[in-house]
């Protein structure tokens, strides 16, 4: 996995609560058996005026100029400001794949759906939770200032505004280590293969019918 240490990135505001994973990457793109290439279809139904299907030439499609990510001031944004319960709905990992492929490396919001939150960490995308009043203020400042950027320092667990104001965020210690180092979790788990084997053997002895 790609490591995440620090980021100084342009911020884009997506001012909606309960953004579900089907809005992030609509179902028709889930037919792909690849892990990459989802970026052009991130938020497809909001971003384009026509209906998107896999295999279309996205560069020729009509953009919805009202959609926030289509405003030129947000081109190249790496941090997405979000609202409550971002990433709810389907467990599709294509959602963080699409965010990542588009260029987002971090999300800042008040809350995320569990499975989505988890999936982000597996893909080097950092979902940050800050208090609602701070997120409100970041939205306001972002909208008022073109070219608005934020710094994120994962080791220090801080989001830093341009005037130096720092906001602490919580992150699970293990997930933080994995992200900072870009560790492969499967490799980490397999270091405990003997313990897994021993557990399995005793469970099988006790409950053989789970193992047919």
């Amino acid at each position: 996995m790609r490591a995440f240490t620090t980021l100084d990135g342009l911020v884009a505001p997506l001012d909606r609560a309960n953004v579900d994973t089907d809005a992030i990457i609509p179902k028709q793109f889930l037919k792909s058996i690849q892990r990459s290439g989802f970026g052009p279809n991130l938020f497809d139904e909001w971003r384009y005026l026509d209906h998107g299907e896999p295999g279309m030439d996205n560069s020729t499609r009509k953009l919805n100029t009202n959609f926030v990510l289509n405003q030129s001031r947000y081109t190249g944004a790496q941090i997405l400001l979000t609202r409550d319960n971002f990433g709810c709905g389907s467990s599709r990992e294509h959602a963080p794949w699409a965010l990542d492929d588009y260029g987002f490396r971090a999300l800042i919001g008040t809350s995320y759906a569990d499975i989505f939150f988890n999936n982000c960490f597996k893909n080097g995308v950092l979902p940050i939770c800050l208090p609602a009043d701070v997120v409100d203020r970041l939205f306001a400042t972002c909208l008022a200032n073109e070219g608005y950027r934020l710094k994120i320092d994962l080791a220090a667990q801080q989001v830093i505004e341009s005037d130096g104001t720092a906001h602490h965020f919580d992150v699970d210690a293990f997930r933080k280590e994995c992200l900072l180092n870009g560790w492969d979790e499967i490799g980490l788990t397999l270091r405990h293969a003997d313990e897994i084997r021993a557990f399995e053997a005793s469970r099988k002895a006790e409950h053989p019918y789970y193992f047919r």
Partner: protein
Amino acid sequence: MQQAQTLYEKLWSSHVVRQDADGTALIYIDRHLVHEVTSPQAFEGLKLAGRKPWRVSSIVATADHNTPTDHWEEGIKDPISRQQVETLDANIREVGSLAYFPFKDERQGIVHVIGPENGATLPGMTVVCGDSHTSTHGAFACLAHGIGTSEVEHVLATQCLMQKKSKTLLIQVDGDLAPGVTAKDVVLAIIGRIGTAGGTGYAMEFGGSAIRGLSMEGRMTICNMAIEAGARAGLIAVDETTIEYLKGRPYAPAGDAFEQAATYWRTLTSDAGAVYDKVVEMDAAAIRPQVTWGTSPEMVSDISGVVPDPAAEKDPVKREGMTRALAYMGLEAGTPIKRIPVDRVFIGSCTNSRIEDLRAAAAVAKGRQKADSVKQVLVVPGSGLVKRQAESEGLDKVFVAAGFEWREPGCSMCLAMNADRLESGERCASTSNRNFEGRQGAGGRTHLVSPALAAAAAIAGHFADVAELN
């Protein structure tokens, strides 16, 4: 004496392989359900890393999301969907499994329907699947939850997941349900009460006399939608209803082994005096048939209610969400729910496509006719076995006589990855679990209801109380 434990704590502690000081645990996985959409990248990752699957006998697989529900003889026409289903075929052929129910197999069906009906979901198991509605299996006192594709690969490679313990939430529903009120109405009412993020971070146990009075089908409907309340896992304790359901299922133990297993399974309940992090109490008798009016399952009303007015909502983010939802849904505040006309009706999905659901819909449809204004009523059984059972009871004939379409099993219009979908602007009474924008087709408008209410809407042409039909 041992401290009183919740069911969740029992399931958790019986699966911890190891635990680190910070609470991160390796949890052993007993059952791994696999479908075509979220698995190809995991199998590929495994192969690229030169790793072997840990225990293929934990795998039960089927193709459900992309498969068509009619003209099976013509195969899967969409080449991209076909490639995904064929990729699953190839992966399972190469790797192996306990059971595989491919496209057209007589036991093929929705992954969350086939697990339980084949006895591949057993009490006390950890069950995972690359699908958020894996919470369904919690109805059997399983620790069951959806995972992403990276975790699918992790389970394939290690038979474990890295997890932290969840908090516990008890939803206690006591009292008797009014006639015509079903499990679907109960769970929609719960979500209406606690909100779509109300269960986030919790394992959500459902208890109380109203839950114990439900069949396994009803309990699966409830746990299925735990994820719509934000909880990755739903749970219901084992009782005799659970044990009875499992007798004679193909992958359940048989004979003496069954009795021995059942003795253990009966311990899979929360102990008296167990402490939860949060408890919510609901009065079953007060629950009415439910209909969602918005684009989130928490946007729900009684059938006799009206579309709410965003202006009355104080929270600005919620108000904005309501306004956006009403615009998307093409509804005006104050409209009685019963005046909302529907264009299509969908009876199916892992929430409501089991035999009991089809019986409830057929009981309403029997001797009646779909309204002319309704373009299509799809009835999609959850599996080949459900389909055959329904046909042996003559339910298919009831549906066809009423002008409904009787289809082959699959996810179908629940998420519209195959050809079954809403056109933009069309309004649907649906027994599925998500009413998000575009869920059943771009621009489509979904109202979540029970099977009985879906059938009533098909007959009346608008939402209606079953008792008020002609």
